[in-house]
């Protein structure tokens, strides 16, 4: 068991535990905070996969922006205590069991995957030499330019949508 594998093991266990913690918290705020810790661990994992840019994005955007947004909304809707108690739906054991089956099956299927398409030309050394961000930028703005523009459109739509939905309509109560 090399150091590398040990760290991975820790990360894996941490991520799984944190995820469980996230979905079991009674108070949504605690859940969001645990989520934050989870995101940090995921960022570290990305580092191992030498995707530094992704790790940064994860922390800044995902944890920084989206979770903060969640916090704002949770604060906005001061959920009453009674809401807090009954966390789970009536038939929660059924849900857990079914999902367990789903996960099990997926694992069986995914373990079978052994076919490897030809390796791309971005070997690890090359990425290290140029720097992750440089490579992403070159690839992003050449082959994936169109998706990039569409992504910007999606965000624009999201902004307008959020404003329209959340705005207080005059008189419509």
């Amino acid at each position, binding site marked *: 068991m090399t150091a590398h594998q040990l760290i991975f093991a820790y990360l894996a266990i941490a991520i799984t535990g944190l995820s469980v913690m996230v979905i079991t918290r009674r108070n949504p705020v605690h*859940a969001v905070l645990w989520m934050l810790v989870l995101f940090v661990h995921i960022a570290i994992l990305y580092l191992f996969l030498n995707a530094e840019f992704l790790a940064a994005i994860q922390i800044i955007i995902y944890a920084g922006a989206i979770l903060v947004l969640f916090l704002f909304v949770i604060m906005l809707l001061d959920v009453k205590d009674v809401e807090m108690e009954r966390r789970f739906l009536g038939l929660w054991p059924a849900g857990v069991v079914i999902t367990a089956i789903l996960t099990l099956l*997926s694992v069986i299927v995914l373990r079978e995957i052994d076919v490897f398409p030809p390796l791309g030309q971005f070997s690890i050394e090359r990425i290290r030499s140029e720097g992750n961000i440089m490579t*992403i930028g070159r690839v992003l703005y050449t082959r994936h330019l169109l998706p990039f523009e569409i992504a910007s459109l999606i965000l624009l739509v999201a902004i307008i949508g959020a404003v329209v939905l959340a705005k207080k309509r005059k008189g419509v109560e």
Partner: protein
Amino acid sequence: MVPLSWYILLSTVVFGIGVIGFIIRRNLIMIFLSIELMLNSVNISLAAFSHYLQSMTGQILVFFVITVAAAEAAIGLAIIIALYRHKPSITAEEVNLLKG
């Protein structure tokens, strides 16, 4: 060297947890969080594949997933606010106007 299958295993487990969260939680916001969780698990597997297959497409996809997640979170939460204004509680059961 950590083999690729472990990463896949990890992402599947996290995805499973996300699904459980989505199914059994009553609070809409917690459902949203579970969705975020599911998305992150997908990101993990994408990143892993990008690393092992030495191609940047994986990372680009993760990048786009995050943007979409952001948009989705914004819209979702806006809907929750609109719902909340309509009826104080935001548990999934009350929101069943779509009942057939």
